[in-house]
């Protein structure tokens, strides 16, 4: 039920396993009719770029949520990782690639701290990552001195287009989608995430080292957050101290719209991708329709509630 190896293309199965896919299609069709410019190649690529950052954050959160945890720190960790990379190249004079790696390491370290607090410190994940949300944001401000820093060229390159118009963020998002699907379906850690989320005690009594796996899970979430942060900064060629504020909530929303359960044990990479696309399409479409940002927030909240409500009803009726 968590994942099955599909042989060939089975549309009914894809729909029944991804309830939000129908919603995404309805949304796309409706917007194409209401806003003719929506369907242009350029705009669709924009949607992909807008989705990329949230999707990559959300892939990391999928690991955490499937294992029954939560990571509230991903937005702050994304900002911190990008800021560390920018600072390393702009202020400390490190070469770009080294600065990039340092940014990624920053994300992993933040994730490991989260994981250690949750598994060895026995803190509730909500509390541990809430603390990290504040710590990482504070460190971002400390490192930057409160002002944006320019990103090294290699990071800016990540945010740019390949050739004439193929945006790299979109490609990177697809690569991370593949990685996430592979980790969840095929790796030891991925399978352990479902077991831990489904029944942590049974996992422990079956010889799974739950504490070690949680370190891996939160470290992955931190790494993905760092990638998302670097992409976001690369797009603007600048790492901002207030970048990605509130993105953790978009990430969680994407995972949940994608059909994962916050009580753990259920979740899919494809669902999360669809969830992130739903959010991006909705934001983009509302802009095209010239809905004010104030009302946009209201609409997005309603959509999140509706998506999960429908998913719950669908499961109950089965």
């Amino acid at each position, binding site marked *: *039920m968590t994942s099955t190896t599909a042989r060939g293309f089975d549309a009914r199965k894809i729909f029944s396993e991804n309830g939000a896919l129908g919603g995404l299609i309805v949304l796309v069709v409706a917007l194409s009719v209401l806003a003719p410019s929506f369907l242009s190649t350029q705009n669709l690529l924009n949607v992909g770029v807008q989705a990329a950052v949230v999707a990559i954050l959300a892939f990391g959160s999928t690991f955490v949520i499937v294992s029954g945890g939560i990571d509230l720190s991903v937005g702050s960790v994304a900002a911190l990782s990008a800021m560390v990379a920018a600072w390393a190249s702009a202020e400390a004079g490190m070469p770009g690639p080294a600065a990039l790696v340092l940014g990624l390491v920053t994300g992993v370290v933040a994730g490991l701290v989260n994981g250690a607090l949750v598994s060895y410190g026995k803190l509730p994940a909500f509390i541990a990552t809430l603390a990290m949300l504040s710590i990482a944001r504070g460190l971002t401000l400390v490192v930057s001195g409160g002002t944006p820093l320019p990103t090294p060229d290699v990071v800016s390159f990540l945010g740019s287009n390949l050739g004439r118009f193929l945006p790299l963020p979109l490609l990177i998002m697809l690569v991370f989608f593949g990685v996430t699907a592979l980790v969840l379906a*095929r790796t030891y850690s991925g399978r352990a995430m*479902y077991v831990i989320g*489904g029944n942590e*005690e*049974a996992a422990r*009594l079956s010889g*799974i080292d739950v504490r070690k796996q949680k370190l891996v899970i939160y470290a992955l979430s931190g790494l993905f957050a760092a990638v998302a942060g670097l992409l976001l900064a690369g797009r603007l060629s600048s790492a901002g101290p207030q970048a990605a504020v509130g993105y953790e909530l978009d990430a969680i929303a994407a995972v949940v719209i994608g059909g994962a359960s916050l009580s753990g*044990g259920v979740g899919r990479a494809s669902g999360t991708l669809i969830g992130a696309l739903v959010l991006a399409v909705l934001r983009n479409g509302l802009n095209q329709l010239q809905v004010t940002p104030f009302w946009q927030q209201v609409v997005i909240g309603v959509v999140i509630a509706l998506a999960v409500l429908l998913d719950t009803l669908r499961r109950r009726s089965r």
Partner: protein
Amino acid sequence: MAELLVAEGVTKRFTGALALDDVNFAVRTGEVHVLLGENGAGKSTLVKVLAGVHAPDAGRIVVDGQPVRITSPQHSRDLGIAVIHQELTLVPELSVAENLFIGRLPRRFGLVDKARVRRDAVALLDRVGLRVDPATPVRELGIAGQQMVEIARALDLDARLLVLDEPTAVLTDTETDRLLEIMDGLRREGVGLIFITHHLEEIRRIADRITVLRDGRSVAMLPGGASVQHMIEQMVGRSIDEQYPRQDQQPGDVLLKVDGLTRDGVFADVSFEVRAGEVVGIAGLVGAGRTEVVRAAFGVDRYNSGTVEVAGRRLPGGDVHAAMRAGLGLVPEDRKGQGLVLSSGVGENLGLVTLRSATTAGFVDRKRQDQRAAEMASALRVKTTGLSQPVRELSGGNQQKVVIGKWLLADPKVLVLDEPTRGVDVGAKVEIYELINRMTASGRAVLLVSSDLPEVIGMSDRIVVMAHGRVAGELPAAGATQDQVMALAVQDRITEETPA
């Protein structure tokens, strides 16, 4: 005695499967009527029909001589039918009194009338013989007390027909005695009781009549005094020559050696050995420390001193994985809470323990995992629609087979079984016993923790009896009687001499 409820030809079909097939059944006032049958025989479905959860597809239900269609749980309650489910429905943080009157607290001037709540609660608790302060939070009561509160609540709702769905599965012997006494009292007050249990001895003690269900049909109506042998034959539809088919093996090398194991305040100086080909039983009252000892030996919980050796290798404390690698396995007492991932499929659950060994360079060979799971599921005759069926949907016996199966796939040298047949029907029990025989025949060993005395005596070669966290004695199972084991289990203070 008047017929309180009569069911005639009740039939219920679920997508293809016939859950109830022309079931006939009747309860009189002042009668304890036992519903007996293997898991999956249709007992729960019949109870749900009476409780108004399922509507029957055919047949007639007559209450007090009036034909009725029970349309909802509320309707069932209005007819005076109360069902006490295995999963209790109390609010643990609220007091006993508040739980008794949930949703209908007596009020005065819009405020809860505390004096009256207390007075009524005391009177009700008295009726079921539960002597606790009504202000006690329910969570402090223990499972037996909580059941009494449920029963008291049902009585206050003027229940005339009380359905008890396996209430004794979670009770100790003394608690069971107490419950049977209360049931007897209610019977004398004229309440009709439907009693579901797998413990055949209890049936002999309390039942007036027994209706046996098999494969959804009511196959026999027996008098309360029917012999255990007769009940089993009717239930499984064949005669089980031996309830405990233990085959003796020649014991070999020591595979598990527990020496002086101590955890302060929980158990002290526990020592025993299990040899290849042997089944060693651990008996004792609930709370004697049996589960705690095997959990510590397996590395789930820590201990303060003592050693655990598997095949001569000493295990580090508190490390489940090391215990597993050394060849130890544990089928825990609470299969739903500790043994299974209920939302995951049969295949996934069977592969839990072998997940690591099926991993190369971080990647799991899922094809091989699925193949081995399929082989194990068919070898154990797990009744399932497929490997992807969530284990939540399996019956208790089949769930237990999955938990045992996941360990058999890892091929442990010593398998610890903690209450392996609790809540499991007779047919599946015998299959589990045969698995034990197969393990010991192939040179493995089994440590069997069980509260079921006939089972411990019937299936073990030696019995270690625990009392108050210590080993009270050890005796060969051949020729041992329940009285001998009980005498050790209830002893107050262990004398300072070392057990034989």
